[in-house]
């Protein structure tokens, strides 16, 4: 694993073109300013982490990027187009996908059905196709099913064997995997992962670190990651931004972040020190 991290880290994609550019992002909830003038610049191919104490506004940034909230102010440029204010499904169509901190699967659908919903934007959605099962519709459905199985296969044969299980019956780690497989269905360019190792033991976490790196490689993804476990973020990130009380207090490569006074004070100081 150490070697893999080293190769992943060596080009930090600093010279690659911007994929997601966030300028002066503000999100208010009534009197609370959850995100307060945040700028981020994520380059194609990066694994970019956002860290910060609980309540710092990290998930809110994700929710704004994915269109759950309209930002109170600021710009979100994805691949050069302004996506702030678009509906979530339009943003998915443009190539941004995500997972949730608290895993939001469709519990009473099977694993396969969950992953098929993830491909919704790539399937014909008109009533006539659905009602009359026209050949192109049937072909698209068959392809979607094959693709869903391939996506599950990313996590090994074991996940393929679980395809007809209801999502509610899966283990925690399996649920995380299905959520990622579902998120891959829209053929994204950028994947937002909100604490993908939360609640996992050490072995599962190590496994998750591996597949996050494989995601970038095999699907040509850029990854924006919220992660609490510093041994994870420090190991796999090309760049890290630190949020505290809605403001970005630091940004840089992992080594810089580990040394940054304000970060140690605001974040690391309040938690266990980095090893």
């Amino acid at each position, binding site marked *: 694993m150490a070697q893999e991290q080293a190769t992943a880290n060596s080009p930090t994609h600093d010279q690659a073109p911007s994929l997601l550019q966030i300028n002066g992002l503000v999100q208010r909830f009534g009197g609370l300013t959850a995100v307060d003038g945040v700028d981020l610049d994520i380059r194609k191919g990066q694994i970019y982490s956002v860290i910060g104490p609980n309540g710092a506004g990290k998930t809110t940034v994700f929710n704004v990027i994915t269109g759950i909230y309209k930002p109170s102010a600021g710009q979100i440029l994805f691949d050069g187009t302004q996506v702030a204010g678009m509906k979530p*499904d339009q943003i998915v169509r443009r190539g941004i996908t995500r997972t949730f901190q608290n895993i939001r699967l469709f519990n009473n659908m099977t694993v396969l059905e969950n992953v098929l*919903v*993830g491909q*919704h934007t790539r399937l014909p959605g008109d009533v006539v196709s*659905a009602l009359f099962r026209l050949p192109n519709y049937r072909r698209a459905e068959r392809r979607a099913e094959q693709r869903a199985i391939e996506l599950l296969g990313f996590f090994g044969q074991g996940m393929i064997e679980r395809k007809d299980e209801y999502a509610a019956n899966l283990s925690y780690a399996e649920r995380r995997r299905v959520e990622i497989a579902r998120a891959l269905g829209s053929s994204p360019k950028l994947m937002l992962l909100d604490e993908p190792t939360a609640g996992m033991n050490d072995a599962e976490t190590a496994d998750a670190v591996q597949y996050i790196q494989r995601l970038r490689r095999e699907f040509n993804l850029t990854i924006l990651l919220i992660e609490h476990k510093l041994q994870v973020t420090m190991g796999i990130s090309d760049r890290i931004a630190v949020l505290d009380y809605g403001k970005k207090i630091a940004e840089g490569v992992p080594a810089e972040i580990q040394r940054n006074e304000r970060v140690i004070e605001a974040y690391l100081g309040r938690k266990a020190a980095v090893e």
Partner: protein
Amino acid sequence: MATQTPSKAASSWTAGIRRGTDGIRRWLNETMLAGRPLIWYVTGWRFAVIALVVAILLPLVPTSAYSDIQSLLVAMISVFVYIMLALGLNIVVGYAGLLDLGYVAFFVIGSYTMAAGTYGSINDFAGKLHDLPTLPFILLIPIGAFIAGIFGILLGAPTLRLRGDYLAIVTLGFGEIVPVVFANIPIFFGQTGISATQPAPITTPVGIISFTDPFNHAPFYYLALAVAVLVTLGCYALRSSSIGRAWVAIREDETAAEASGVNLTRTKLLAFALGAFVGGIGGVINTAAFPSITPLGFSFAISITVLIMVVLGGIGSIPGVIIGALVLRLFDVFLLQRINDPVHQSFLVAPVNAPLHVLANVDFNTLKLLIYGIVLVAMILLRPQGLIPDARRRRELKGVGAAPEGVSAVGAFEQEEAGMSAATTADVLDPSEYTGAGSDAQGREG
């Protein structure tokens, strides 16, 4: 209608009902037909095939013009219409999870499309009569469906942000308003109502087929059956399509569905539009079969009856909803009268002090909604997933009051949703039975 914990007293009667339903299942299991238990025949796709075969053969039973078979055929036309309505409402309530208490509105719109499209004239607002070209019945089916579908979107669009109770209230209002609008505009003759011209006879190689022969209801029966089967097939196709998956997804978790690329607005509007579309078809067929309509004959009771059919059969389950509509509508238009008359006659001749003599004064027709209410409450307490539950709904309800495994009478049906379902559809709906006029008269006499 919240699920309540049954009290001690309730639990004794619920236990009684469970024993009864358990008995039915045992009977199905123990009664053999051609070497198989009866229950084998009423499970999964076999049920669909058998139901369809029975439905096709029913009019072929040798019959005289005045026999019960002919009135059963009329009742079945009504059953077919209600199967359509229940399947249509099931798209909205069962698939998309949106509670619609005003579904009758689309039935009205379909009915008026059929009537206005065949009547030949309309009023203007000054009350002056104008000729209106008439259209063939077969064209009016899609026209009525499309007009109803458009109204489905018009109702759906402003209510999309509403959920649960709020949505229910707005749809309820819509269901009340539409008939009142028809009652108050002179175009279609206001409260007087309007009569459709029934479908013209068609000439075939085997002879002329008339849809209006009072001594032979089989042609219209088959027509309504065919439309009901088409609607059923459409519902199966939708359910297993990407649209069907999107409906389940938004029912389960709207945020996750959106984040997966599902357009909430479009998906919900599609459910409203398709549900309304089917309701419109039901209206056209019903008015073609039973051509006199009055606007105030379309009451809230119809919305509720269709909803009870869906709940009784199993929300989201196509075979369940068909069974729900069959049972309730057949009870309503066929059995009730056949219970009512003998009871009255036998008690009218009995001495006044005979036990149960009071039944002579009871009109079971007026108790219909009460009976439905009891059925609904009993279902919610005993078997909230319905008679033939949808697999997914059963999971959603698990632990929320579902009967313990192996206790429910119909447990063996639970393979459910295997294949095509068969069935029947159509309806009658004599508007006068909903106006309350009948029961008033009854009350005064008593």
